[in-house]
């Protein structure tokens, strides 16, 4: 079949398309005189203009078939039947055209609804990342990826809380360094687990990760490329001079790395923005621009991964610089900090309404 079927036929331009297609339809038909193909080809064409010429040749072939089978029937009955067939075929084509147009409108509406839903979500309908009923829209895999992540993250936060309590008890109880080291290692490993989880869900929906909708509102306030700033880790008081120097260097490297990634993100924003805005605005079709922008957005996944990688490396370097006890205290401080941010979010969400002005 070589009749071109456009993916998207805007109704405003619809009036131009059929003429183009009629020409091709006509050529198609003339070149292959097979009656069977004409009825099975998808037609998005208003055939009113060329109806007669196409269907007469069609009818002549069908008529010859019919004639062979039922030679005894009177001619006028045949003519009547043929006229009815013509009419039925024309009506069917018109119905099909209307149906296809409806489908395309619905498709556009669906895309719009999905976008609105995404926006509503990001405005805090999912308070504290609690899983709420069904995730409407998107593909099944994206849904399940996000649903799985939210469940796992809920568990992650619980384990985190438990670990923090253990660390606090351990530090106050003055346990041995070896035992403390185990706690420190599992604490750091727990963060690495979070980065792994984020990497998986980022492949499913990178905007989900970057919007921070899975975190509480106060945490989101400090969000940098889908998580905390690596330099947040460096708010500790080291002891020795050597450590001061090392932490200072780490702070500087961390800052430079963050700045570089931030600038890369800015460039990405500019690129996507100019791609989406590109092309003539007075044309209805924006598909090429949007499609190109889609490709560029893929880079967002690598930025999210790189940011998490930076968090991971910074954590690891800190654990190298610090003693076990210092690292334990540092992890406790970090965990406690996020715990308090989460509490702040809950408090803020449930604060009494402002008294109305007189």
């Amino acid at each position: 079949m070589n009749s071109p079927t456009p993916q998207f036929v805007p109704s405003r331009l619809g009036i131009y398309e059929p003429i183009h297609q009629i020409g091709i339809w006509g050529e198609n038909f003339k070149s292959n005189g097979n009656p069977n193909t004409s009825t099975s080809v998808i037609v998005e064409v208003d055939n009113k203009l060329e109806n007669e010429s196409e269907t007469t040749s069609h009818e002549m072939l069908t008529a010859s078939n019919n004639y062979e089978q039922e030679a005894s029937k009177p001619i006028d009955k045949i003519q009547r039947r043929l006229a009815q067939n013509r009419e039925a075929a024309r009506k069917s084509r018109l119905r099909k055209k209307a149906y296809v147009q409806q489908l395309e409108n619905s498709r556009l509406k669906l895309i719009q609804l999905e976008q609105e839903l995404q926006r509503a979500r990001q405005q805090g309908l999912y308070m504290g990342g609690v899983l709420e009923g069904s995730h409407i829209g998107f593909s099944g895999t994206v849904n399940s990826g996000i649903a799985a992540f939210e469940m796992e993250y809920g568990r992650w936060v619980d384990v985190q809380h438990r670990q923090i309590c253990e660390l606090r008890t351990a530090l106050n109880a003055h346990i041995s360094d070896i035992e403390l080291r185990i706690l420190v290692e599992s604490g750091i490993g727990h963060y690495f687990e979070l980065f792994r989880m984020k990497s998986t869900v980022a492949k499913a929906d990178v905007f989900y990760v970057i919007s921070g909708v899975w975190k509480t509102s106060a945490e989101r306030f400090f969000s940098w490329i889908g998580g905390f700033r690596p330099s947040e880790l460096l708010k500790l008081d080291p002891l020795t001079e050597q450590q001061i120097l090392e932490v200072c260097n780490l702070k500087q490297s961390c800052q430079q790395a963050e700045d570089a990634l931030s600038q890369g993100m800015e460039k990405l924003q500019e690129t996507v923005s100019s791609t989406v805005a590109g092309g003539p605005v007075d044309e209805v079709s924006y598909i090429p621009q949007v499609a190109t922008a889609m490709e560029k957005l893929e880079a967002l996944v690598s930025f999210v991964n790189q940011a998490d990688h930076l968090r991971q490396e910074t954590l690891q370097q800190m654990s190298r610089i610090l003693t076990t006890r210092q690292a334990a205290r540092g992890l406790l401080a970090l965990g406690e900090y996020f715990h308090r941010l989460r509490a702040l979010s809950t408090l803020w969400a449930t604060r009494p309404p402002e008294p109305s002005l007189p």
Partner: protein
Amino acid sequence: MYCEGDSWGCYLPMSLRSMGSDPMERVVKLASESAVVIFSVSSCCMCHAAKRLFCGMGVNPTVYELDQDPRGKEMEMALTTLLGNSQTVPIVFIGGKLIGAMDRVMASHINGSLVPLLKEAGALWL
């Protein structure tokens, strides 16, 4: 000194241009000609981040935009095979030695090994 972009070609006399040589050789040759070399793609934002990282440290990297080089595709493939298929631009060489993609560059900066390498290559002074 060489400047960014595809103007590097005009600074080399014809005899030194590696015409028709193996793309890997060309990569290695280009990598050893400057202290800091970044193989990049002009539309890649991660490459932009890499360039900003070095500039932010006061280093002036030599950048080869593979999409603007007629033999860039071959060189990109050679680099990918060198690093393993998961690695992609930006790819950084310091003092002629391969550092790797953005992952490795970031990791070595955080663990403190990047700055000594840069000083050794003469790209950074105290």
